[in-house]
Each structure stands twice: as structure tokens, then as C-alpha cells.
């Protein structure tokens, strides 16, 4: 087969189709981008003013924390940061849908979910600063460690949910992953296991339209939520910038899982407003127009417009939240700057739960080496 004929063949296959807005399937929405409350035939929500204000506060604090982390990276205090800008509603809405006894399996971008679980924001920064490879006790808030290897955690979530089912407990699991991750074999296997064992797990895909430089079209020819059907469980697409819709849909999915309904796939349709990480330059592969179009769907402005119109919150409240986020940012900034570098000997810590003679031997040799170096320096100083 010649090179030419290959090209001819795939152009016949029609490789390119970046679906226009009209081509998109419907999504669950309860709050329009303008902040108008709309009803949905299947999903509804009724929140108290306090709960509504709480969602606003969560999103503002999360965004502020995220912005602070970006700044800290620019200042050299962090080695890297993966910003969640634009995904606040997807994360706060789904995170607030979880119960304390549910278990969360995040990727590396779930700072908002972590917030809803009560994880100290400072703890999230350790691995990005380079002082640890995880940094919190997953069982303290039922929030697993961040997972960088794409898709792996979806299998852990399915397995954890299988355990819940075996125990006859009534909690549920939520597994976060991205549009890019949906291509991984691990994710397909997680769907298979969860379906076969009717495991109480919600697969929560934040489709932020990009996997580094690759648009979602490079991963899937069908909307991601539709994949669930082939595995034998329902899938739904929700407006990922609508915190009310995300909360309603995720609550329903978790409740379904808790009551024996099995797994469900939620695709939160959202947008990664920033670069992939602070190491990335998005201008190399995407047009700014796209980002600007999504700015009009901003999750925080949308809720704020609704709260104001409803008289649920006013300027004084917004100012109060802003002040609180300043205080939080200051605490984070100071906390990061005073995080000590790890002791070199910590390299050998926690490699095994039951110990290992080779680690012991290498630890001893390294300690001796370090000590000889110090002796030598002291000698030179004298």
C-alpha cells in the first residue's frame, strides 16, 4: 500500500469533524448561563438559601485557592500546578453530592472536590511543591490520593465499590476521570467490572474538552456518556458549569448506587479555562475564541446572577466571601512557604509495611555516607 493510497482512504473515512454546537446532544441544565432557573423532566433540586450560598462560597474559595497555587508556581514555590479554573461547578456540585461515608477517587485536578471533602488545601500542595508523593491520609476524609497515571483510579474505585457491596453497606463511590482518560483500557475495564458486579460506583467524567493538546474528538466518536450503554448502565450528560444540575444529577446517581442500582456514568460538560498545567502553553494548539465563548458560561457568575435575582445573597455577602478567600489564600501562601524540604533519609521510609532487608542495608549505607560527608565538611571548616 502506498503512502498516497493511505491518505486517500482515510479522507474517504471523513476523519475530521469538530461538531458544531447544533451537533451536541442535550444536557441536563437547571441554571442557564444567564442565571435563569429552568426545570428538567427528570432531575430537580430544591435548596435552602443557605445551601445555595454555600455552593457559591465553595466555588469562590476553590477558584481563589487555585489562583493562589498558580501564583505560587510562578514564584517558584511549587514545581507544577494543574489548574481547575472553569471546572468549579463540576467539582463542587459533585463533591457536595457525596456523603461523609462515600469514598472519592480523584485524578490530579480535583482541588474543588477535595475542598468539599474537608481536605486541607495545604495538603494538596505538597506533591506539587515536591515534598511528598501524596501527602494525606486517604481514610481521614475518604478522599484517595491524587492519581497521575491516567485512568488507574477508576479500577480502584470499582474495586472499592465491590467491597462496599460485599459488606452490605449503603455507601457509594465516585471516580473522577477526564475526557482523555476515557480512552484508557483501565477505564473500560473499570466499567466492565462495575457493571458485572453491579458495584455502587459513579463514574464522573469531567469532559473539559481537552486532554493536553488533544480535543475530545481525538478520543471518542460518540459523546462520552453514551459509552455507558454498551457496558449496561446508564449515562447522562450534565452541564458541568451548572452547579445545581451537577449536584442534582450526582446526588441521583449516588443514591441509585447506594440503593442497589449499580454504576452510572456522569459526563460533566465543561471547559478547561487554563492551560493543561503551568508547564503547558495552550496557545500552541487552541484558539482563544473558544475560551472566550466559554467565559460566558462561567459557573460562578451564573450562580451569582441567580442568587442576586432571588435575593438570596447581596453585595455584603459577596464581599464577605471575598474577604474569607483572601484570608484563606494568605494562609495557603504562608503555609507553602514554610513547608520544610524532606529529610533525605525519608527516601527509605514506608517503602514496605513489613520492612525489607535491602532497604535497611541501603538506608544504613546512605546514612554512613551522609555522615562521612558531614565529618569531612566539619574537618575542612576547622
Amino acid at each position, binding site marked *: 500500500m502506498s503512502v498516497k493510497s493511505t491518505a486517500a482512504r482515510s479522507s474517504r473515512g471523513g476523519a475530521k469533524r469538530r461538531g458544531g454546537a447544533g451537533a451536541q446532544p442535550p444536557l441536563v441544565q437547571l441554571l442557564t448561563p444567564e442565571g435563569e432557573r429552568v426545570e428538567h423532566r427528570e432531575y430537580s433540586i430544591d435548596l435552602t438559601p443557605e445551601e445555595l450560598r454555600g455552593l457559591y462560597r465553595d466555588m469562590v474559595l476553590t477558584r481563589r485557592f487555585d489562583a493562589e497555587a498558580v501564583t505560587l508556581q510562578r514564584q517558584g514555590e511549587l514545581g507544577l500546578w494543574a489548574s481547575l479554573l472553569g471546572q468549579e461547578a463540576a467539582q463542587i456540585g459533585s463533591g457536595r453530592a457525596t456523603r461523609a461515608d462515600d469514598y472519592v477517587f480523584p485524578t490530579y485536578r480535583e482541588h474543588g472536590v477535595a475542598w468539599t471533602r474537608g481536605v486541607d488545601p495545604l495538603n494538596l500542595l*505538597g506533591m506539587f511543591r515536591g515534598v511528598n508523593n501524596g501527602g494525606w491520609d486517604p481514610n481521614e476524609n475518604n478522599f484517595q490520593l491524587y492519581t497521575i*497515571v491516567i485512568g488507574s483510579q477508576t479500577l480502584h474505585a470499582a474495586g472499592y465499590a465491590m467491597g462496599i457491596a460485599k459488606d452490605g453497606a449503603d455507601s457509594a463511590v465516585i471516580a473522577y476521570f477526564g475526557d*482523555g482518560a476515557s480512552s484508557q483500557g483501565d477505564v473500560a475495564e473499570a466499567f466492565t467490572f462495575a457493571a458485572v458486579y453491579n458495584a455502587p460506583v459513579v463514574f464522573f467524567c469531567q469532559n473539559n474538552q481537552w486532554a*493536553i493538546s*488533544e480535543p475530545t474528538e*481525538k*478520543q471518542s466518536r460518540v459523546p462520552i456518556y453514551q459509552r455507558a450503554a454498551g457496558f449496561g448502565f446508564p449515562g447522562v450528560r450534565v452541564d458541568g458549569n451548572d452547579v445545581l444540575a451537577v449536584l442534582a444529577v450526582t446526588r441521583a446517581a449516588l443514591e441509585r448506587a447506594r440503593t442497589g442500582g449499580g454504576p452510572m456514568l456522569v459526563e460533566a460538560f465543561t471547559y478547561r479555562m487554563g492551560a493543561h498545567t503551568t508547564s503547558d502553553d495552550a496557545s500552541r494548539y487552541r484558539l482563544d475564541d473558544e475560551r472566550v465563548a466559554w467565559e460566558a458560561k462561567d459557573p460562578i457568575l451564573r450562580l451569582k446572577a441567580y442568587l442576586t435575582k432571588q435575593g438570596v445573597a447581596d453585595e455584603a455577602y459577596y464581599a464577605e466571601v471575598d474577604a474569607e478567600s483572601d484570608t484563606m489564600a494568605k494562609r495557603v501562601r504562608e503555609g507553602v512557604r514554610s513547608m520544610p524540604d524532606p*529529610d533525605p533519609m525519608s527516601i527509605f521510609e514506608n*517503602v514496605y509495611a513489613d520492612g525489607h532487608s535491602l532497604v535497611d542495608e541501603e538506608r544504613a549505607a*546512605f546514612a554512613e555516607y551522609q555522615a562521612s560527608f558531614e565529618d569531612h565538611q566539619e574537618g575542612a571548616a576547622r
Partner: protein
Amino acid sequence: MTSMTLAKALNESLRHSLESDPKVLMMGEDVGKLGGVFRITDGLQKDFGEERVIDTPLAESGIVGTAIGLALRGYRPVVEIQFDGFVFPAYDQIVTQLAKMHARALGKIKLPVVVRIPYGGGIGAVEHHSESPETLFAHVAGLKVVSPATPSDGYWMLQQAIECDDPVIFFEPKRRYWDKGEVDTAAVPAPLHRANVAREGRDLTLAAYGPMVKVCLEVAKAAEEDGRSLEVLDLRSMSPIDFDGIQASVEKTRRLVVVHEAPVFLGTGAEIAARITERCFYHLEAPVLRVGGFHAPYPPARVEEEYLPGLDRVLDAVDRALAF
């Protein structure tokens, strides 16, 4: 002769391969418009099209598995794994399929697939971005495993790997991507699997590859100030290993220290120590020593300098070998 970075040399090498053989394809995550996260494929999609420089779905098993299929169809895929720690979803395809198919087909089929992997630490990255898993591949019969240390070797070895009819795991020392060196694009390159004497010496041989060659050259320079003459051998290939080249050097210097970032336990250095002890038992004045990583997960960035073998740790081993 042109001076260029290792990254640029690899880019030029890929460009040359795409130009000279229409069957050569590039595949990987973000290798198209972005040019890869390290820009090694920068500009290639623009010049050779999406049919030959392919942004793949985010699935490493899929990337290598389909590369095998494309190779069966007569193509020569060069796949990029974004970082060392992300090759493992593809490990099954590499070990159970890519490595063995030629033998299973009684030699009737060839699998000219190159798997490029940026590897090693020293760039202050988060976990899974700094590992040195070469032994896990060198241990598998059917795979060839190489790593350039210089822009010149990057330029030539990558083309040789692409021309090779066997699968080659091509480890790129990512912390050396931005180091410059002279590249002679008209030269006749040395064979792919031959070790290179990077610096001649009399008293001890330092054998290294990839990112550690530069460290060993610095060690040799420092040792020279103490009146010690160290030979630095750039192994270039971890499978096969040029034992003849190492033997020739050791018969001259009588002492050998092997250096790599990968854990020493069951590593390349262990194999070299065993073979060289067999081959050069009566020439050796000291046991073959190894400097490398510990039997521990790659540590967080703020302590990696202590973990990575640096000047001091290599010098310490040199001192111990010379004191024997």
C-alpha cells in the same frame, strides 16, 4: 558540523527518517500540533501531515498495540511515550507481543517498532515523571534497548533504531534535552550497540549511559585535579551491552565503577559486574562497584538531588575502588 541541543538533534533525526522512508510514522499523545510535551516532534505534523504524525487517543497499550499492527502491515512506527512512568499500560503489548512475535513466527515477520521514552530524573517533576525503567525492558529477550547521551548520538542512534528490523526501546535522557553539542550530519556513525570511550584514562573505568555520562565526565575532570586518570565509557546500549568494549577498557584500567540512575538492585550494573568479573577476574584490582538508585520509589522532587548519583557519590565509589 552544527551545534544543537539533544532535543533538536532528535527532531532532525525524526525529520530525516520521515523524509527518507515513506513507511516511517510517528505516533503518540500530543505529538502533533503541540510537537510533544518536550517538542521533540515539533513541526513534523505540519510538514508531513496528520497521516504520518499521528495524535493518538490517550491509551498507551493502544499506541503500542496498533503500532504492532501497523508494523505487520509494513510500516515503521516510531511511538512516543510521554514520560517514563506512563509506559506501563503498554508494557503488556511490549513484553508479550512486540518482543516475541518475530520468534513465534519463526522469523517470517519483523517488528521494526521504535518506542521512544523520555526517562530519568533531575527536572524537578512530580511522581511518574523521573523514572529509569530500562532494566525492565533489557530483561526481555527480543527487545533492544539504547540511550544516547549526546546530541550527536541522539541524531544518529535514533535513525539507526528506526532502520533496525527489531523493536528498539529508545530511552531519551530528558534532563539532557537542552544540552548542546556538535552534530556532524555527514559522518559515518558507529554501530548502534557499541560503547564509546567518551574520555580516555588509565586508573579506573567509569561506565555509564544516558544522563549519567555527563556526570561521569565531570567526575573524571575533578579526579584529574587529584592526579587520577579516569576513563569514561558511554555504554549507549543496555541490550545488547558491549561487553567487549568494557572488557578492553577494564583490562587497561583494572578497575570498574558502573553508574546509572536506575536502582542498582538487579540493574544494568549488576549484569556488567557479573560478566566483567567472569571475563576479567585476573585483571581486576578491586570489585566492580555500582552507583545508582535505591530500592525505594523515586522520591519527591525536593529530595531527588540526594537520590540521584551525583559528583560526590560517584567520587566516593571511585575512592573506594582505588583504595582497594
